[in-house]
């Protein structure tokens, strides 16, 4: 069984992120599954950047703690990471930089010398060390050379040649000097074609599939790459991507566009989301569909911008003054991100209300490999459902003397949902009113219509719970006494923990929640059993989902494993707490 972790690290600002992704793609193209994650401070230069890729020959869902191949671009890398090395770990380093006294498998590569001899840029260290890594791991250099060809094609043949030459130099050096150390961990094998996606990539791609036509955002880690990705595609896809003056403008632009009849989304993190909150309430009362992508990072305030946390769940659920329906979904991995993003656009249109997709830095910025056919299946199965939108743009007014009429935009209905007419349809008009309103949108402060509209909006929740709410997914052994309860990006980590426990003959169950709000009390109460031991696992310090579950269903989970240092869980640290 192949299961190893390769990590490259060094000073920020020297292309480590790009080269790490290259390694992930090489492994994926060589037929393996990958899960990678990055560490970087909120700086452009200096500080420690790291890119860690776990490679396996079976589907995998998270990182492991120990490193099998460490590529050190400086001494600091070695000092920071040696605690994660075993005597079987390889260390690729430059003797000119530092010496290693400890007993690891040392691969001394003359990095500085080659770079000087080639008169190459310091960025080429990455190419050189990936070449060396491939030789050590028994991979095929051709996979890397082809990737270089694709990635540098725009920069011309000379740049491609030079990069390929550097990659080969690293590859050959290890082949020539360390042939006794070479392992067969990256043998090229045939496998199904895979995509290497982050949560943000998955959201971006799914948004295009869902026919979102306006994406509006102000850059904020960890959501920024959605903005960059969708912007880079806009000439191809025809989508408009707007980066306005602030997040208030972001959400109000999207609300305006959605009112005008197109699917629109916004993306942000906690701080930007805070600025959007008043307007979420506007979308609520005007019953304007809107998809909000919330990539969490540790707060409060600026917090730890480039790290991860699940600290905004209760905030998201309660965002917006007044009472109005809101749907909150939390994908657990890139596949669920794709599926739930597609779903979110439909739900926003059907229920004419904001739908929040809650991610975090760990899900948003870690790459996972996923079989392309899985994504293709999700795409071909997808049906756009725009709910009660009336899209008769081409309908002509039959009677030319027809008096222009007000349209009953907020018509009272049993399911709480009213017909929505695309503005511009001839012969009608209505207003989407931020004030409480009558069925035709005119302002009212009267008791009865107020009550009727509040109840109409509330009925959307009932309709959602009966038609679209999904119970959490269960993983593991149904008879197990020990059952994990969690949500969002902890999914993959808990699945790995369950696997390790199974190896020790410990059976566990796991309820993974992704339809977080509103919650269906009746259905949820029925899945929780008195004779089981439930453990709540969350990447925050309050156990926010536990609070939500207690408030909505009365179920109280006393045993909690919480982590709030800005890092995701590692399976090993959970195991230590359990055994």
């Amino acid at each position, binding site marked *: 069984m192949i299961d190893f972790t390769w990590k490259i690290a060094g000073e920020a600002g020297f292309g480590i992120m790009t080269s790490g992704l290259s390694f992930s793609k090489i492994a994926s193209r060589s037929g393996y599954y990958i899960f990678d994650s990055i560490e970087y401070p909120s700086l452009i230069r200096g500080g420690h950047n790291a890119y860690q890729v776990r490679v396996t020959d079976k589907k995998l869902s998270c990182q492991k703690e120990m490193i099998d191949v460490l590529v050190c671009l400086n001494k600091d890398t070695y000092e920071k990471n040696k605690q994660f090395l075993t005597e079987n770990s390889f260390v690729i380093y430059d003797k000119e930089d530092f010496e290693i006294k400890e007993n690891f498998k040392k691969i001394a590569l003359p990095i500085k010398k080659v770079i000087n001899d080639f008169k190459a840029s310091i960025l080429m260290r990455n190419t050189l060390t990936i070449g060396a890594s491939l030789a050590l791991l028994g991979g095929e250099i051709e996979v890397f050379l082809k990737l270089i060809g694709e990635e540098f094609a725009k920069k011309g043949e000379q740049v491609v040649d030079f990069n390929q030459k550097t990659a080969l130099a690293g590859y050959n050096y290890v082949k020539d000097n360390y042939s006794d150390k070479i392992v067969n961990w990256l043998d090229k094998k045939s496998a199904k074609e895979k*995509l290497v996606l982050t949560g943000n990539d998955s959201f971006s*791609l799914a948004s295009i599939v869902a026919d979102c036509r306006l994406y509006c955002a102000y850059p904020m880690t960890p959501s920024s790459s959605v903005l960059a990705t969708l912007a880079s595609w806009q000439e191809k896809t025809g989508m408009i991507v707007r980066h306005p*003056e602030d997040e208030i403008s972001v959400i109000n632009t999207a609300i305006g566009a959605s009112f005008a009849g197109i699917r629109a989304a916004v993306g942000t993190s906690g701080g930007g989301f805070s600025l959007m909150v008043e307007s979420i309430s506007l979308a609520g009362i005007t019953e304007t569909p809107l998809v909000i992508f919330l990539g969490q990072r540790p707060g409060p305030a600026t917090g730890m911008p480039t790290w991860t946390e699940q600290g905004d769940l209760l905030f998201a659920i309660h965002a917006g003054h007044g009472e109005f329906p809101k749907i909150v979904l939390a994908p657990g991995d890139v596949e669920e991100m794709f599926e739930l993003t597609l779903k979110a656009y439909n739900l926003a249109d059907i229920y004419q209300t904001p739908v929040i997709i809650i991610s975090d830095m760990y899900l948003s910025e870690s790459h996972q490999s996923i079989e392309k056919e899985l994504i293709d299946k999700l795409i071909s199965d997808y049906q756009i459902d725009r709910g009660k939108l009336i899209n008769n743009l081409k309908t002509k007014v039959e009677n030319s003397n027809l008096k222009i009429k007000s349209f009953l935009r907020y018509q009272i209905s049993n399911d709480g949902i009213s017909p929505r007419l695309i503005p*511009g349809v*001839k012969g009608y*008009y209505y207003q989407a*009113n931020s004030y409480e309103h009558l069925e035709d949108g005119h*302002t009212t402060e009267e008791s009865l219509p107020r009550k009727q509209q509040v109840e109409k909006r509330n009925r959307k929740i009932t309709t959602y719970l009966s038609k679209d709410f999904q119970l959490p997914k269960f993983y593991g052994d149904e008879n197990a006494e020990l059952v994990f309860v969690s949500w969002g990006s902890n999914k993959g980590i808990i699945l790995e923990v369950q696997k390790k426990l199974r190896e020790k003959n410990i059976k566990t169950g796991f309820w993974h929640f992704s339809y977080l709000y509103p919650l269906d009390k009746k259905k949820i109460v029925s899945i929780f059993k008195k004779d089981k031991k439930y453990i709540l696992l969350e990447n925050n310090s309050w156990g926010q989902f536990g609070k939500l579950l207690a408030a909505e269903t009365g179920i109280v989970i006393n045993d909690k494993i919480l982590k709030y240092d800005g890092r995701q869980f590692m399976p090993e640290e959970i195991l230590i707490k359990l055994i």
Partner: protein
Amino acid sequence: MTQSSINDFTGYSPTWCPGCGDWGILTALKQALTQLNLDPSQVVFVFGIGCSGNMNDFLNGYAIHSLHGRAIPNAIGVKLANHKLPVIVIAGDGDCYGEGGNHLIHAARGNHDITVIVHDNRVYGLTTGQVAPTAQKGFKSKSTPSGIIEVSVNPLSTVLTNGATFVGQGFSGYMVDLVLLIKEAINHKGFSLVNILQPCVTFNKINTYQYYLQRVYKLDEVYEQSNFQLALEKSLEINQEKFPLGVIYKEDRPTFNDSLNQLKEKTLLEKDRFKNFELLENEFI
């Protein structure tokens, strides 16, 4: 469809104070729209919050009655989605120059093709008489009993220096000119601001009809609308309590939407759905 009439646009009876400048603005706007051959189903209004925004119920048309300060980004969104519809923002001075001031500057920069009509009465009427950002220094109000310390914002020079391609100023007492000005602003391709001086008969006892009648003047026919320096000078005359009326500045510059290749053929709303997902998936292999 038969030609629209003013009555088509007429909604509920206004709840404004008798004598309020808002009446004149509403009448002028309805006349302008009718003269432009628009009917209520062919136009989108975005109303801010305040006495001005309350026009939402008095004027028929597709509309968003937005939040305080946020009408401009809503309007930009509508225009991005369907650039065939004229989009008109109705806002107040506190709304547009205070709470939503940032949006105003950036909408001007972007030359978004929307018309922003601001009711400038230099006071907050709906919240019963606090100071507005356009109030004269020293103005005493419920929130500034000893007189406002800040100097007034200058809406005309603010948008001028931030890229607005149409800057106009009207007076709610001069209806005929106001109709012409609003029509020209709606017809202008690009961002247009129409600042309308209007007395608040209830809460502003300084900037009254008499005050304005003595201080406003119409720009004459030889005034060069495309002269930026001249426009800037005109915009600064407020410091001497002089108020030029008419088109202060006008220039042709591609609008935000004109610069988007995505909108070259159809509106965002009318476009066919993009379906070549394979093209995008390939980037992740």
